[in-house]
């Protein structure tokens, strides 16, 4: 069974269709990167997969379950979602925020047990925020806060991870570390779908790339091919040049 299966997915928000007729599959161990111009419907597609917005037509299956019909707790076991914007109404400590990721696995009062603390420690280490554990969330820099909420999503322990611009606001070293970590999760058998504008990282770490333009899945395939395709040039209004550094590492820049 594929981790994520989309069939003829169309999502309407307010006026018209924001996502149109997307049919695609994400399998275990796959890191899919979604690229596309602003307002193309990337975030809405991700939210539809997470069961946060209902499709107008078509279907979403996450490990065989419809995320709109199954209980949120059940879905949270299988799928974690990192939104693009994250506003915290009350300033919790970093460790508490990461531990919120354990909600679906806890009962009763939900005081952190040994399992929860181990999961939180692991997630914080993976996102390089362990040293911030007792800091208040509202005192963090933008990039630090971003890494903390990635840690929250990781801490959920789900097999499908949907991340919306995980590296926005991160310095190059941390951005690369986050993508390497996502790739490592996939190598361990999870599935990751990442929306990003970071084309170099998408090129280097993604197994597959989806180009979303005007709500449609305009191109898909190996990242280097999609970035070089005519559809990508049309969508962005400029060509993307894919090359290799002397070290052999690939890069992508607007030509």
């Amino acid at each position, binding site marked *: 069974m594929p981790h994520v299966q989309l069939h003829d997915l169309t999502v309407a928000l307010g006026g018209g269709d924001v996502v149109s007729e997307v049919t695609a599959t994400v399998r275990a161990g796959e890191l899919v990167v979604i690229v596309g111009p602003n307002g193309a419907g990337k975030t809405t597609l991700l*939210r539809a997969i*997470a*069961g*946060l917005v209902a499709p107008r037509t078509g279907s979403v299956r996450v490990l065989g379950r419809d995320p709109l019909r199954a*209980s*949120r*707790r059940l*879905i*949270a*076991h299988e*799928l*974690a*979602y990192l*939104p693009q914007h*994250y*506003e*915290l*109404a*009350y*300033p*919790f*400590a*970093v*460790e*508490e*925020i990461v*531990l*919120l*990721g354990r*909600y*679906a696995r*806890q009962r009763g*009062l*939900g*005081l*952190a047990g040994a399992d929860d603390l181990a999961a939180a420690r692991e997630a914080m280490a993976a996102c390089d925020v362990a040293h911030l554990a*007792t*800091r*208040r969330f*509202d005192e963090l820099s933008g990039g630090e806060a971003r890494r903390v909420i990635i840690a929250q999503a990781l801490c*959920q322990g789900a097999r499908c991870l949907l991340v919306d611009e995980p590296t926005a606001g991160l310095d190059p070293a941390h951005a690369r570390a986050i993508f390497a970590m996502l790739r490592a999760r996939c190598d361990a058998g999870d599935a990751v779908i990442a929306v990003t504008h970071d084309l170099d990282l998408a090129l280097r770490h993604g197994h597959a790339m989806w180009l979303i333009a005007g709500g449609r899945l305009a191109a898909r395939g190996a990242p280097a091919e999609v970035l070089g395709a005519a559809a990508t040039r049309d969508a962005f209004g400029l060509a993307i040049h894919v090359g290799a550094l002397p070290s052999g590492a690939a890069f992508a820049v607007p030509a």
Partner: protein
Amino acid sequence: MSGFVTGAARRLTLRQLIVTLAACAAITLVCAALAPLIGIVVDRGGWRLAVMGPAALRPGSLDHDILWVRVPRMLGALLVGAALGGAGCALQALLRNPLAEPFTLGISSGASLAAVLAIRFGLERAFGFAGLGGAALVGAAGTLLVVWRLARIGKHLPPATLVLAGIAMSTFCSSAQMLIQSTSDFVELNHMVQWMFGSMETVRLVTVGYAALPIAAGLLVLLAYGRELNALAAGPEVAASLGVAVGRTQTAVFATASLLVGAAIAVTGPIGFIGLIVPHALRAVLGPDHRLIVPAAMFGGATVLVVCDTLARTVVPLHHLPTGAITAVLGVPPFLAILVHQKRRAALWGRG
């Protein structure tokens, strides 16, 4: 981000939960035990503030009789304070708005209007406290629903529009109330005014008995939602993807908060700002974890109202001031401080 939180930046442990709540309970118990013993005594030498001794516990003495006039009042203050503190704290978490509380959301005015209508149209005469209480309950729930609908912009509940909607409803309800009062006869009017003062004067053991069950049940429901309220601090979408049944949580907490506020208002009339100030003060000291501060706000609200009511009985000798006025006078300055603090952080005009 909302202001005034400087509490410990550590995760909640069972030990911290038990120690903190035991301390809160102890403070509440001490205040509740002392309050009925304190009062103004008038004798040939004039008036003086006096604390009754153990003699007051002996049946037959004058002190004993006085004590038993004050005890229902103290019990009423405990119940109402706990209800308002708990409901205020839960509403602030649910609406992600530090200014949310029964008064600013217009719930108090809605409940008052309904109660005044009940007095005017004889519901109270016909059904006693149940008529008044039922009406206050319906008024509280109805207003909360209307304000919620009015303030919603798409999926967001911005603090500014929420407070605006609350104020609009509040003003509407108070005006409607005035219209009803101006057409009421003297007996009704007297009853309404006394009730609207938020006076604890009229609290009897019977009314406390009626309100105890719904308030206790409501408080228990709120206690069960601490974890969900924590997750909702990150917004409904994040909470949903963490596994929270957001719709069910919102409905349950809204309904429960209306029940609590309606029941509380039915007992004493509108008591302002307990639901705002107490959770804020506790958040500042104990941190934002709702598993801790929701129960703490219940104890805190109970304590503050018992103290305010004792002040109401004793500050001006031979005059019992309305308790609601005392809490409002003490509560408004901190409310303004929060507003100014928020404005400085430009959060008030941002998205909820």
